[in-house]
């Protein structure tokens, strides 16, 4: 009935969220297949341009995963990612894009289950929001 398959790009830090996603795999937890993850060393690598580029390229949602506060492998990269996500959400509102399409989640290397739950919830959310349709448009 609902033929909409959301396109979701994710950025995951190497030390926590990427490892948490690996653990979800090792423990065979199932979650929806729409997310495609890109590995960066730290969530602090999250360039705001990359998020906007993903939306412009046709993504319906962008997922960002980093270490819990206090756990960042690079001391404070996750705080910087947090600030950028807050600012970006404001920017998205200005562009007429639902800010919930940009999701930030802290997932540690031992939280495979949490990773799966977060991806499931976010995928459902984006499915509910429907297609964004910014592909090819200039922001």
């Amino acid at each position, binding site marked *: 009935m609902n033929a909409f398959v959301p396109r979701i790009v994710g950025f995951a830090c190497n030390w926590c969220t990427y490892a948490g996603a690996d653990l*979800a*795999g090792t423990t065979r937890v199932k979650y929806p297949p729409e997310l495609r993850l890109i590995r960066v060393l730290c969530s602090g*690598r999250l360039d705001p341009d990359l998020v906007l*580029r993903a939306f412009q390229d046709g993504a319906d949602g962008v997922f960002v995963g980093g270490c819990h506060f206090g*756990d960042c492998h690079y001391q404070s*990269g996750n705080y910087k990612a947090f600030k950028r996500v807050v600012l970006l959400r404001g920017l998205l509102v200005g562009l007429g894009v639902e800010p919930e399409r940009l999701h930030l989640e802290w997932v540690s*290397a*031992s*939280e495979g289950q949490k990773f799966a739950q977060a991806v499931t919830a976010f995928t459902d959310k984006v499915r509910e929001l429907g297609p964004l349709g910014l*592909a090819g448009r200039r922001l």
Partner: protein
Amino acid sequence: MSADRVVPRIGVYVCHCGVNIAQTVDVEALAEYASTLPGVVVARDYTYMCSDPGQHLIRQDIAEYRLNRVVVAACSPRMHEPTFRGAVFGAGMNPYLFEMCNIREHCSWVHADREAATAKARDLMRSAVARARLLEELDDRFAPVKRAVMVVGGGIAGIQAALDIAEAGYKVYLVEKGPSIGGHMAQLDKTFPTLDCSACILTPKMVEVSRHPNVELLTLSEVEAVDGFVGNFKVTLLVRPRFVDTAACTACGDCAKVCPQRIPNEFDLGLSTRTAIYQPFPQAVPAAFVRNAQDCLGSLPLACGKCIQACEKKCIDFDQQEERRQLEVGAIVVATGMDAFDAGASPEFGYGKYEDVLTGLEFERLVSAGGPTGGRIVRISDFEPPKDIVFIHCVGSRDRAIGNEYCSRVCCMFIIKQAHLARERLPNAKVTCWYMDIRAYGKGFEEFYDRVRDEGVVFRRGKPSEVFRRKGRLVVRVDDTLLGSVIEQETDMVVLGTGLVPSDGAARLAQTLKLSLSADRFFLEAHPKLRPVDTNIEGVYLAGCCQGPKDIPDTVAQARGAASAAVALLNRGQVRVEPVVAEVREDACSACHICETLCPYSALAFDSAKGVMTVNPALCKGCGVCPSACPSGAITMRHFTGQQLEAQVDALLEVSVES
């Protein structure tokens, strides 16, 4: 020699991983799809890419097809990236021109629908190939390794690791937060299943490690901060004052004789008292006394100060201050051990409410010849020997309700040993063990369990639900799951087989060292099977119960493993440092200093001669916080360049990649 001017010739290899990937992802179709992507010269699929024939396939193709990029679609790069980097390097290719595509942990293992999983694998493949096209050659850097190791924790794990490393000829700093080394093993009377006297096998090691010329023992010390990287850690210790000159003190005890204070003795879990200036236990190492400032009345003549007068050698100095000490070490062994589960958190067993409900460790002090009763088993309430003792297994373990789902592994045997000791000391007493399952898995364990059953200890299956008092006697209410009936058993003493939890402070140390914890809150090893002593931080190793509950032989084995891992690193003499660092394009930098304020490592500094920012590659760790904030786009993060990441995003979303 920038590789991006070379026309990419990419080889793609899709791994079946037996059926791990192949049963969910159509690997043949994926390889065929990859062969259509721009730059791909050859694409194959193979059962096990990581195997020798799999790696040989890659090396052969590099030579035959003159490949200058390799993509392997298989497991997580956290698993086998080093393997394949080694394989391509062996064929003369720069290892940073290799790219991994994770279609196992992130795809075949987490999705059930073959079509959707294959579609996702195609997207991931497109992204990996797009990134591979833009990869650049990088040269590894090397840094010398400091010829010293810090071992954190002075229990049996830390002692053994320190001894092994010291014997290999390296300097060891053995850091212990308490006033003495020895750990929990020093509190035990006998060890299962051999009934060795714990002190007899431990204390010689304590003395040996403290006298070893390569070991520096740092008691009352805690790790406050750790900086640096594998081979070159800079540690800041907080050293608390002992108020007694360790070298001069002969442990004569004259100070304690005059001390008027009486404090519950931690070593006996409050079953005895100690003075404010005291020796933690008679075999403590260092043997020197220690003054607890909180317990002490003070040195003003009006207040007290009696110990200062009593000490003939004048070892006592109330003015000692806490100090900070810097260490430079090449490797770190974490051996922070465990604590016993707080039995008060399972209130149904009446611990803290009824004096004659004890924890396993308290019972251990009671049966110990060096304990508060000299080894006599008596009820705390009336100092009479109990005629009936009930042991309850799995208190604080295998219990979802309190958040400890795991089995603590040692308590079954620990209780069986205590039941044996109880029967030995009180031959007429009735001893009952209520268990969920008996886990007697180790060498000699099952035999010991059989022996203790033959000695007359009664084992009954069921987890008691409640301990209460009726007419002056303790009553254990339990559903006997073999008889299928609820029983109320009257007894004189209840001993709780408390499980193990991570030691207090482990979580903080994890933050300081940037180590991960597993769901049970013990330290997470790098791989549960193949790297059980390594961590996610290179150069930091785990030993003993800090990684998960284990008995003494397993603890010693892991300690020796961690020590040999540290020694192997130090023997190498140098470490490879990944060349993943930031670089400033001088013509684009506007010297706004934004990057400088963001960098947590002070790796960016202003070059006043050139008027631009510069990166100190020795300090840069490659997090990439600076390039993503640079308003001029002047900073490039090697191996994670903006171009590479953009190409990955574009490719994932099927935006055609312009070359």
